[in-house]
């Protein structure tokens, strides 16, 4: 009996050859699996043409927040010559919608529902920044 589970292509695995050598229930099962497998492959092709799957999508900032000055934490540290400090990571993730460009203060849009929250974050960021500058001095 041909070993249909032999994954080595050098051994000449051929699913149709395997099919020919199966009988009865095994053959029916294998036929059914081949049908599903072919259905998945052809349907995926159509879906990918119709609705391409986005492998990696960068999170978009909320409406009203200017993201033009967003820099990564590494870049921010590099510019400021800052050392790694656990406290500096608070609210400063690279994907943060808040601009951490030191040349500009955080650029925040006027989104009323979040105004208090954003103001709180800004105050905290300012506090950390001042503390770090004192420590660096």
């Amino acid at each position, binding site marked *: 009996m041909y070993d*249909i589970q032999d994954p080595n292509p050098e051994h000449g695995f051929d699913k149709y050859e395997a099919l020919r050598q*199966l009988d009865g*229930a*095994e053959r*029916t*099962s*294998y*036929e*059914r*699996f081949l*049908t*599903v*497998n*072919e*259905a*998945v492959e*052809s*349907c*995926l092709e*159509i*879906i*990918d043409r*119709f*609705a391409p*799957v986005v492998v990696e999508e960068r999170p978009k900032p909320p409406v009203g927040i200017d993201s033009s000055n967003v820099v990564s934490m590494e870049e921010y540290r590099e510019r400021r010559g800052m050392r790694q400090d656990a406290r500096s990571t608070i609210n400063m993730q690279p994907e943060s919608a808040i601009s951490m460009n030191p040349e500009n203060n955080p650029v925040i849009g006027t989104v009323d529902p979040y105004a208090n929250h954003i103001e709180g974050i800004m105050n905290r960021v300012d506090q950390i920044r001042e503390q770090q500058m004192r420590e660096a001095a």
Partner: protein
Amino acid sequence: MPVFKKLVSSLSAQKDAQRKAELYRKLMRHEAKIGGELFGPVRPGGRREFFCLDKHTWVWHEEWVDQNGQHQYATTRYDFRPNGIVKSQNGQYRNVSHQEARNLRGAMLMYRERIKNELYSFVA
């Protein structure tokens, strides 16, 4: 070939074809059950099936009991054609959103993986 021998041979072939068709249906029913488990828990009193009908068609069948205690059902059929996907739900045609197409993609991949491991591991 004598008539009797021909008759026996024909009956035997017919029986084989019937057995094959029955097994094929059983396999599909089992797949549908596995497919129904891909989308999370089913509402109490409900039933869900998701399966590959043929090379171009996928079916999602859902039954549930509504707030008034009425039995409801929805059979959604996705027909894959070279120019896109046609979705019909309880006989009415509807659009397939991009998100729905992506969800369907994920479901099909999981379906293949699950049935391969749970149903066809001895041949696939």
